[in-house]
């Protein structure tokens, strides 16, 4: 870069990015690859969906719910509520009520579509942006926010919801998912009458570069573990485009491990659900793992601490707006006459009431005592923890005269 191109202080970040991108044309373009889709961004629904997967043609028609109006409306409802939840959580963070928020806007179809395909005995391992999947597993909205309010590192009982706690070290949970699937495999051998469960590892394009993703795919393939790897390629790992993570479509990596990989339009909830149903059935019937790449876009920031104007073009953001997962399903529901105005009005009212309740729940969350944290380190009595707890209690008691030690 020569001196004349250095940005002046008043230079807009957007212009710098535009210049940089122009000088490096195509670098942040996703490498090509087929993408399964039935509901296109203009809201039209294709009649069917089929693809060549691992050498044979898969017809996804039996897995599509394209004509089931109540089901489509309920998918839309989930996506609409989770987006409203996302907006409310962002507002709560801006008002200082949450330490941080991780927005999911843009990824509703990938999450709701895949989550709704799960059966009760299945078990999902999220990263930390899977609020939509959490919704499909029965996790309450306020439970999700407990972590971001800073009152817990968990928030719900994973065993009740078959939905693991958020894992912040990227890709670590992918191995847990495979191990869990190996356990499901053994349970099935011990008692064939059990409904076969499938474990699902959620991760993103950024995490796909982590070694744990590689190791988890090797283990899953070696042991034919009933696991589905669900990768949401939202194009951005904070500020780094997916082209830095991979030179081939991520779904193609599956071939190297010896199991099927499918790329689906992650903004098409009907296609995502169908592909996920197929993948779950594949794993459930002992055929081993599947990798799904849901091609989508993080329409908002990485977190509320992030500023996407520093690294990506608003032009690109606007382009992805036209592929919005909610807008296209709404368009289809309206034009096909599957939902009337009252449906959308009632849903809007439900979302507003949810947001009000959520706000109340967040504001009423109480911080745990540090004292209670001593009890959660070990399952069995531990002399050092007990000794330090005694010290802490005595130390705190010393402030009894002045009220609680701040």
């Amino acid at each position, binding site marked *: 870069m020569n001196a004349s191109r250095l940005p002046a202080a008043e230079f807009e970040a957007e212009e710098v990015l535009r210049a940089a991108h122009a000088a490096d044309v195509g670098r942040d373009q996703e490498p090509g690859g087929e993408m399964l889709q039935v509901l296109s961004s203009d809201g039209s629904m294709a009649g069917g969906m089929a693809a060549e997967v691992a050498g044979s043609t898969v017809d996804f028609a039996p897995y599509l719910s394209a004509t089931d109006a109540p089901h489509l409306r309920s998918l839309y409802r989930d996506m609409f509520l989770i987006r409203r939840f996302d907006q409310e959580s962002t507002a709560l963070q801006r008002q200082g009520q949450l330490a941080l928020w991780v927005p999911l806007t843009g990824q509703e179809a990938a999450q709701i579509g895949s989550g709704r395909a799960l059966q009760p005995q299945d078990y999902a391992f999220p990263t930390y942006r899977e609020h939509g999947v959490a919704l499909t597993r029965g996790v309450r909205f306020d439970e999700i926010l407990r972590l971001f309010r800073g009152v817990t*590192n968990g928030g719900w009982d994973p065993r009740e919801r078959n939905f693991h706690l958020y894992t912040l070290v990227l890709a670590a949970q992918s191995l847990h998912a495979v*191990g869990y699937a190996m*356990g499901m495999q053994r349970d099935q051998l011990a008692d064939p009458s059990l409904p076969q469960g499938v474990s699902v590892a959620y991760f993103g394009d950024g995490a796909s570069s982590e070694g744990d993703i590689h190791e988890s795919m090797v283990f899953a393939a070696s042991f034919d573990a009933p696991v589905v790897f669900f990768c949401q390629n939202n194009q951005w790992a904070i500020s780094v485009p997916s082209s830095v993570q991979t030179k081939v479509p991520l779904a193609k990596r599956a071939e190297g491990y010896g199991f099927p990989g499918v790329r689906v339009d992650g903004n098409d909830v009907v296609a995502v659900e169908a592909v996920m149903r197929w993948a779950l059935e594949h794993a459930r019937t002992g055929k081993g793992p599947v990798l799904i790449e849901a091609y989508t876009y993080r329409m908002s920031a990485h977190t509320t601490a992030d500023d996407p104007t520093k690294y990506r073009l608003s032009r690109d953001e606007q382009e992805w707006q036209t592929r919005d997962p909610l807008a296209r399903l709404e368009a289809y529901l309206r034009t096909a006459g599957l939902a009337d105005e009252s449906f959308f009005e009632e849903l809007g009212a439900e979302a507003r009431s949810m947001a009000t309740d959520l706000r109340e729940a967040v504001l009423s969350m109480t911080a745990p005592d540090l004292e209670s944290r001593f009890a959660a380190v070990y*399952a069995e009595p531990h002399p050092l923890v007990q000794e330090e707890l005694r010290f802490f209690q005595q130390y705190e008691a010393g402030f009894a005269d002045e009220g609680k030690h701040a």
Partner: protein
Amino acid sequence: MATMTIAKAINEGLRASLAHDPKTLLMGEDIGELGGVYRVTDGLKREFGAMRVVDTPLAESGIIGTAIGLALRGYRPICEIQFDGFVFPGFNQITTQLAKLRTRSDGMLSAPVVIRIPYGGGIGSVEHHSESPEALFAHTAGLRIITPSNPQDAYWMIQQAVTCEDPVIVFEPKRRYWLKGDVDTRTPAADPFTAQVLRRGSDATVVAYGPLVPVALAAAAAAAEDGRSIEVIDLRSISPIDFDTVTASVTRTGRLVVAHEAPTFGGLGGEIAARISEWAFLSLEAPVIRVGGFHMPYPVARVEEQYLPDIDRILEALDRAFAY
């Protein structure tokens, strides 16, 4: 009562665990057909099958990470890391996941994973095969760390680790795998998280663990010839540390030497010295003296004898303690 080596005692302990609880399983590299590079799992795959004794892909993070998943599903995985220096690819899973799951879940989840790690030097091997990284794990809350020094403890402590609801790392003194001793397979060993006084003495205390326990006992025997009565404590548990036993001993003897193969800087010896100087300050006749490795990566095999604490190094430390 039977006489067996430490390696055989662990093998028998694992066999007992596998036979006792169908939810237990072994995972690791080369542990099945080969029986492990030290043959500690010899014959177990033949006896319990490939679903219970799993030859895993060569990936330590994968071994620990999938073990965590299995534990979440109700299994009790016992992982073997082939050598101390190879645990680090799995360090992330151990410290960020295994150790923290219980706290993360506010006490709802347990991860009863056992990790066996042959550790320590003195085997004339190449880089990464002779290290003592226990302090790195002891610093991590949520883990328990034990290390047997004799066949009786080896047989029982592995089984006690398996039934513990917390994650337990068992550091096995690999250069003592062939050390023989009596094993009472009917009477369980003492609580694995307590220390044991192996030799009574009145003039000074030597605390050691794992591979240095026989060295400490030999040093005490040599010191006895000079008229010094040395008490020897086998720490057995590195996290938690049984400070009560150590404090009680030092309160009587007034002098303490702590010996381990791991480098002294940032090691367990420093933690014990700090504790004892606080809790037994008025009983101390001398500062606590540490004996350990130097602040260097584990040296090449041809010079490791000079590096490893031996009888003379412990005697020299005792001399310094008695010089006060």
